[in-house]
């Protein structure tokens, strides 16, 4: 197993949030827009070297996005902090 680092964990939470938002049974447009944005951020986080295959607890999309934001904040890089901020906004949007 790869070493669990914050970026990998954040990536896993992002994957979880995107999956739940895309699966939204209500077919909500807001969930779809946020889900696509999640995939886009996940793609950026993956390019920073995160594997993102770790098993994470199943939580709501809003909680998963907030957890991913907290984990990205641990990284400290300005580029990653911007993504964390973006995730906090998305977390509020789907809460």
């Amino acid at each position, binding site marked *: 197993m790869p070493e669990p680092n914050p970026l990998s964990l954040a990536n896993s939470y992002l994957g979880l949030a995107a*999956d739940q938002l895309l*699966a939204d049974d209500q*077919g909500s447009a807001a969930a779809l827009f946020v889900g*696509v944005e999640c*995939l886009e951020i996940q793609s950026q986080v*993956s390019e920073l070297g995160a594997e993102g295959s770790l098993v994470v607890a199943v939580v709501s999309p809003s909680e998963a996005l907030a957890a991913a934001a907290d984990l990205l904040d641990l990284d400290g890089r300005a580029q990653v902090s911007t993504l964390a901020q973006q995730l906090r906004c998305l977390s509020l949007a789907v809460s």
Partner: protein
Amino acid sequence: MAASAFDLLANLDAHLDDLETITMIPGSIPRVLQEWGALARASLQLLWARPRHPDANARRLEALLDSLAATPGDHPLPPPGTALMAITTTIGCTAEVMRTRIVTSPAARDQVDDAIRASLEAALARAARWTQLGFQTVDGPPDPRIVRLAGIDAVPYRSPALHAWRSIGPTDPGIDGAVSRWEAAAREAITSPHTVTQLALQLTSADIALLCASTSTVIQRAIQSGALPRSQVAVAALDAAEMSWRESARWPRELRLGGRATELRPASAALRQCLDHALRNGDGWKTAEELFTDTRFEQHIASLHSGLQAGLRVGRQVVAAVDDVTHGTSRVWLDTSRIPMSARTEQARLDAFRYDWRPNLAARDSAEALNHNARDAVARLGHATPLTIEALAARRSLIESRDTDEGPWETVPTILDPLRAAQDQARLAMILPTCEPTHTIGR
């Protein structure tokens, strides 16, 4: 700038209006005949680009245009020319737009075929009448081919289905440009088995779902505002396609296809922002009033229909890519912890090399499900896309039914109206027989 066949035919009318305000100057007959040669060649191109070509009804017109097209002259004709040149250019552009390959219904193709032929015949007749009059003004001899064209009695007809044939490019503003750039980026990201990634495939599928959701909303708003007939067929088909693409964007956790989607990401974000800006207001969709204040609903639907057509093309590439990672040489990776016990010996060997992922075997359930989801999504999008234009084309029947509406007045059938029935009978009694009166032989 994006242009549809509908816009171009409307533009053609404007150019004909301009032409009819111009008086032919003496000495211009040879030049006008050369311009007619170019106009005939462009018109033939348009006739051949129609969805139902070859068509026996247009054979006579084609023969006439063929003889005009053979007129010798420079190619292209040097400026300055007459206003016929603008008409030639517009017809040439329409032919080019009609060559765009799109998925449409047979009904839409029939409507467009009729519309193109009727509009072209009417335009050529108007241009020919102007030419004929001009030749008379400058005391030139009449050209029999122009005379024959001038005699065509056709009424231009604009089917809303003409909105389906559009030309969009990456420099176009708004949704058109964003769709065009997204299509190019998505195609680039997913067509190569060496560069395709899971996130690129997921993002592409989710973007197509967004296009479906956006189109469905615009049609719903148009129905709510009374601009379209109350039919939920297109909406239901688009919603089903949206849900299928959402499902296709969801990958099982045990499968992975790593790598970058760097080039696709900005194009995807731009498309999403464009749709968000044009169609949404904060967290929700705009109301019908907000949507159709600055942009007519036909323009919204035409633009989104181009997006769906792009989505369909890209969707087919998604299916091919998923099929390749399921059955091809470069396979998607499978989490070894999900491999059944019977394969543990293989895993033990892999563990020795500290591998947690291995190439997925063909016909594994989860990868097959991905494959099935992508195929289902393309099929549903292929069903929904033509219905979008059908919904727009149904507007014509809505207008026609409104035109025939006679308001609150009761219409009394002739048979029930004794006065009118008596009048009709009296009129019939007054009609004289058409044959000569029979001469009787007198004694």
